[in-house]
């Protein structure tokens, strides 16, 4: 495909890979060339919009595209979901954050919960590239929400799926799948988990008992993503860190998850208010006009 006619930040492919979960390929040749596993971008959809951090799930340097996968959970991500192929994001800054530290651990296990399976993908790719034997675990509430099974499966020597309701794979949580692997005697030397904060906490609690080094990718509320505002501060080993520049990955055994969850809820009332206004406009046909 010729890319000459493309504008920066233009969407060249869009797929709904699960309900309210979208795969976008966007044209940004420079970020496509530079990005490393574990990094993210900050985007804005339109004037007046929020700055939204999203993980760089992959890229195609030849086509000059980067892949973002996101779940439409609130106002900004719903607005993002309304864009179509040919539309362009207003802004995209990156690649931000420290790249994942990659080495050959022997056997490594990557765990993705919900949309967190997407950020796991580039890290799995890098761990694989470094020669690790790789085990993947995908967790989701129900069968329809399991994403990227094929993509992650092709990188892993073994892939487990766990659903809360048992509609697919093992019934239970990702921690049940991980505990079973450990019980089988699998010699896991490194765990990386991305997903909802309670899930990352549970994984870290489990691996702590076995002394398995564990990294988690934190997603506090961010503004600039460059270390300028301090809004993304998290506590690791009793010290304050800025997740956007010191992370987003940290040692799961040292993270204060309690604080993270509280801080993630800082603007719940405002988020609800703006989502309601938005729904109201949609119903009134203002936005669709």
């Amino acid at each position, binding site marked *: 495909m010729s890319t000459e006619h493309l504008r920066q930040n233009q969407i060249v492919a869009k797929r709904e890979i699960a309900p309210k979960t979208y795969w976008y390929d966007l044209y940004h040749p*420079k*970020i496509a060339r*530079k990005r490393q596993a574990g990094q993210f971008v*900050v985007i*804005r959809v339109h004037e*007046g*919009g*929020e*700055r939204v951090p999203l993980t760089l799930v992959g890229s195609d340097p030849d086509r000059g595209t980067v892949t973002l996968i996101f779940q439409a959970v609130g*106002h*900004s991500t719903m607005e993002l979901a309304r864009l179509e192929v040919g539309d362009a994001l*207003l*802004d*995209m*800054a*990156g*690649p*931000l954050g420290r790249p994942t530290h990659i080495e050959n651990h022997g056997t490594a296990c990557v765990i993705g919960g919900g949309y967190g399976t997407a950020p796991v993908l580039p890290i799995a790719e890098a761990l694989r590239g470094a020669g690790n034997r790789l085990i993947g675990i995908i967790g989701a509430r129900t069968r329809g929400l399991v994403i990227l099974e094929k993509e992650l499966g092709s990188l892993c020597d073994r892939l487990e799926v766990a659903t809360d309701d048992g509609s697919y794979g093992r019934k239970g949580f990702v921690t049940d799948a991980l505990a079973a692997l450990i019980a089988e005697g699998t010699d896991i030397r490194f765990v990386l988990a991305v997903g909802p904060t309670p899930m990352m906490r549970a994984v870290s609690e489990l691996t702590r008992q076995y002394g398995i080094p564990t990294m988690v990718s934190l997603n506090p509320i961010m*503004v*600039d993503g*460059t*270390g*300028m*505002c*301090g*809004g993304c*501060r998290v*506590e690791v080993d009793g010290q*304050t860190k800025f997740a956007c*520049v010191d992370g987003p990955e940290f040692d799961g055994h040292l993270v204060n998850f309690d*604080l993270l969850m*509280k*801080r993630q*809820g*800082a*603007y719940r009332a*405002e*988020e609800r208010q*703006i989502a309601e*206004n938005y729904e109201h406009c949609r119903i009134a046909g203002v936005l669709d006009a």
Partner: protein
Amino acid sequence: MSEVHPSKQPRQPMPEQPPAERVTNFNEVPLGYTPEQAMAEAARCLQCKNPRCVTGCPVAVDIPGFIGLTKEGQFVEAARKIMETNVLPAVCGRVCPQETQCEILCVLARRGEPVAIGRLERFVADYEREHGPRETVPPVPATGKRVAIVGSGPAGLTCAADLARRGHSVTVFEALHELGGVLVYGIPEFRLPKRILKAEVERLRDLGVDLQTSAVIGKLDTIEELLGPEGFDAVFVATGAGLPKFMDIPGENLLGVYSANEFLTRSNLMRAYEFGKADTPIARGKRVMVIGGGNVAMDAARTAKRLGAERVILAYRRSREEMPARAEEIHHAEEEGIEFHLLTLPVKLVGDEQGRLVGAVLRKMELGEPDESGRRRPLEIPGSDYESPVDVVVVAIGAGANPLIKDTTPGLEVNKWGYIVADKATGATSIPGVYAGGDIVTGSATVIEAMGAGRTAAAAIHLYLTGEAPERDGAS
């Protein structure tokens, strides 16, 4: 008829929005001179042959020159005169600390009130923007040299303009989605309306400068890559002092505790004060406490008031005499009902079960012997702690150097605080072809000092690229 020179007349006062009204909006507080007021004020200037005022201006604005034109009513010409050396006159007329830069040196200040240089600068710049024909930029022969500017604050913008005027091809890389640095994310709308900044930045586009936003240098390209594969011949680093400082007291990560950078960025850059029209939220506290005594603290306190706080308290650990903020800002804040709690040190922030801030423990201080800086050292009074209910705290105790460039540029010398070491006379750093200036070199300073550094570096970069000493600044 008595021949009293107008310099004997009192300085023209600045009309302002009354305090009770202005705390309910984000519109500008000073309303600006009328043409008549401007001409009357300009007439006070003695047109000194050796103007002392100019020596106080880091970019050497031709002050008698532009004031003389203002007196004649030639406002557009007056503005163009300033623009020969200052690309942001409408900004500087508003935010320069004139009382310690140019006006303090005005001969009239010896016996009375100095000429209102800043207010006149603001007036003619506004007049030119609103009434003047769009300036046409005379083409300069291209040198074929390419310069990258990292950061679009006053230092970067000034350097970019000066280099473009000398025929170099200039690209500005800015990490955020808007241009202007602190001028756009820090200084509030009621002191510097964004549309005025935007118009001044547009002039750079007219000069042919390539302005790239959302470009984080050190991540997207490193300085090495800019000088290597990206094909730039020189780089000017003007990344500012954008690292927020916290106090390291218990409770600082509670919900409702902000750095001044975050609080002001949410309100200004993200326009949270227009929540509903813009999507980014901000906590609107009922009882807000701002910690600090500088300009940034005043801006945060006045912003909190406008966001609807019932009470805004400013806690400062020294006394009023030591407050580093401009007198005008302290005055404005007081008029707006900001309560100053002096000789007060927050020692702990208290939260509820949900991790939300509910109070602050404050300790009384007293002044002891002067320290190295000559200011009397604040000493804690044991047993004086008391708790005060607050639901938002803004920490405005200064900023440090963002390590992004340092960490990604091997060989770049920095001092023990992480600021880039640069030659005062040229801005040259430890790496050939890499120059630096503004807050990333000096630590937090002023807009006009950053612009002065941009100017100095532009002259040195020109020399480095062409081997020619630049024509005398401002003579063009």
